[in-house]
């Protein structure tokens, strides 16, 4: 216990000094081997790292990152925004709704909140400000709606979860659809509430993009999620192959629409490699910590502890959710995914929780962690791109956080909401 506290304190101290998460974890892992008298077992480190990365399922992650990078550069984002404008611009709080709707569309082709924010911060925040929204609110909607990205499939978090916890990625993907739409509904409601309270612009007078050309340009982009999801769910392609197909589609659409050049493809490849590499190093460092934890049979002790304090069923699931909520306030999601989830989830599954539902709940939780202060990765990114104050954004985002937490609680109590679709498709 003391050792665990020491290791966590070391990670926090290093991270607070600006050390990147991977190397803070890695250093803490090395120190942990020393203080637990396990030094000889560091000999397994290279194999441990190699094995954790040499997983076929992880491949979907770089492929969907690449697909997202290519789509951003291919002008697909612009087409999606226009379609959403067509549908929602005339409602009160119209641009807020458009922002959320575009994130729903975008979620169907991209795998992460980061891709969503990168695509939307530059486009929406200035536009919303021009139409009379306050700038921080525009940023807050952008950050809050980016959480939909990793929930509606494809999803890099779900892919990593599937790879780390040996859970079927196709089933996880199918389980994400309904919760993702529920998230969107909750955000629409919150935006509408804000619009009434603060008298946001929007209404019948709002201009809309022309119908014909907009649909024509948006159609391929909207068809893409149908193809990706349909292909995975009906077993025509694996999630990994779907990632490769999405890349191919982005390149084809990009060249057809003159949005893509060879130089931008090279850029997309380089960025993908860099991002993948960063995630790889975190997985690598975390794999040493988890090896040490297993060697000392901590999970067994933890299971015994949980059994002795008689927290089980839905209550234990809620305890896990609370743990991840707290984690999300302070840490990058990779820490929860690679170190904490493997400790707690097997116990919940042993108590009868569904592994797919647990996977979805944890990913939802980790994604909400992107917009929870004090440390919300998505808010920080929006603040960086738009040049807004971080804490002001946090304050404006808070009602959205509550709405999303309500969705989380709903699914934790009624996991069938998530499981009905994969069950209907025969994936469970």
């Amino acid at each position, binding site marked *: 216990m003391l050792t665990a506290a020491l290791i966590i304190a070391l990670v926090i101290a290093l991270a607070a000094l600006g050390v990147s998460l991977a190397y*803070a974890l890695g250093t803490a892992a090395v120190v942990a081997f020393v203080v637990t008298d396990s030094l000889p077992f560091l000999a397994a480190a*290279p194999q441990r*790292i*190699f094995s954790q990365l040499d997983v076929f399922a992880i491949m979907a992650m770089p492929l969907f990152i690449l697909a997202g990078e290519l789509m951003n550069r291919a002008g697909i984002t612009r087409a999606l925004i226009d379609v959403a404008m067509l549908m929602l611009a005339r409602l009160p709080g119209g641009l807020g709704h458009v922002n959320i709707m575009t994130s729903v569309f975008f979620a169907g082709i991209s795998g992460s909140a980061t891709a969503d924010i990168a695509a939307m911060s530059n486009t929406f925040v200035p536009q919303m400000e021009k139409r009379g929204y306050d700038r921080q609110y525009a940023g807050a909607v952008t950050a809050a709606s980016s959480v939909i990205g990793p929930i509606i499939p494809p999803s890099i978090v779900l892919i990593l979860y599937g790879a780390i916890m040996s859970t079927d990625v196709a089933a996880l993907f199918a389980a994400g659809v309904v919760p993702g739409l529920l998230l969107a509904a909750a955000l629409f409601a919150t935006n509408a509430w804000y619009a009434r309270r603060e008298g946001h612009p929007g209404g019948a007078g709002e201009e809309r993009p022309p119908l014909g050309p907009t649909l024509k340009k948006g159609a391929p982009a909207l068809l893409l999620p149908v193809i990706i999801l349909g292909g995975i769910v009906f077993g025509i392609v694996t999630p990994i192959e779907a990632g490769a197909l999405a890349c191919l589609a982005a390149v084809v659409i990009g060249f057809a629409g003159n949005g893509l050049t060879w130089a931008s493809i090279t850029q997309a*490849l380089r960025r*993908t*490699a860099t991002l993948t590499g960063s995630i*790889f190093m975190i997985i690598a460092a975390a794999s040493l910590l988890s090896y040490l934890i297993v060697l000392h049979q901590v999970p067994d002790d933890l299971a015994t502890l949980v059994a002795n304090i008689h927290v089980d069923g839905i209550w234990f699931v809620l305890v896990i959710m609370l743990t991840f909520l707290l984690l999300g306030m302070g840490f990058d999601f990779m820490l929860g995914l690679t170190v904490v989830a493997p400790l707690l989830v097997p116990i919940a599954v042993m108590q009868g929780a569904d592994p797919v539902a647990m996977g979805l709940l944890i990913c939802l939780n980790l994604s909400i962690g992107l917009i929870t202060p004090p440390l919300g990765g998505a808010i920080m990114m929006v603040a960086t791109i738009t040049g807004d104050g971080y804490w002001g954004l946090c304050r404006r985002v808070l009602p959205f956080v509550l709405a999303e937490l309500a969705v989380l609680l709903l699914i934790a109590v009624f996991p069938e909401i998530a499981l009905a679709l994969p069950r209907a498709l025969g994936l469970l």
Partner: protein
Amino acid sequence: MRRLSEWLDRGARFIATWGLLLMAAAMLFQVVARYGLNEPPAWTEELARIAMLWAGLAGATTALLRRRDPVLVRSEHFASPRLRRAAHWVQSVAVMLFCGVVLWVSPPWLAVHGWRVTEALGLPSQWVVAIVPLACAILIIHALTLLVSESAAENSDNE
């Protein structure tokens, strides 16, 4: 030092770019083969996996050099230059400790892999896994470079 880092970085970028392309191509070929050929080849998966590992770990070295790894606190925002330098120093030491340990224990592990070949392609396993210590070695060199010249990253960054 800096020249060495830049030279290694060019190599790493080459591996990363072509590795990702190879991986995507192998997966696309797998789809074509499954619906086009009678007996889908077993090597596509293995080739894609190896390409991903090499590309990803090469990407890890480019991420370090450009300070792209996820952080909780951006040391660039520290007000005091002395504090900023201290932070960069700690980061480099952390990289060297972690990667140094992995590099240090690699030789016996590489020897054990000398007794293996990969399942489908029959490649020497040693060569495939060598990317782990190789990436660690490059990361250590980059960490040293970042210690010596704080600005190495910003200069070579043009994405």
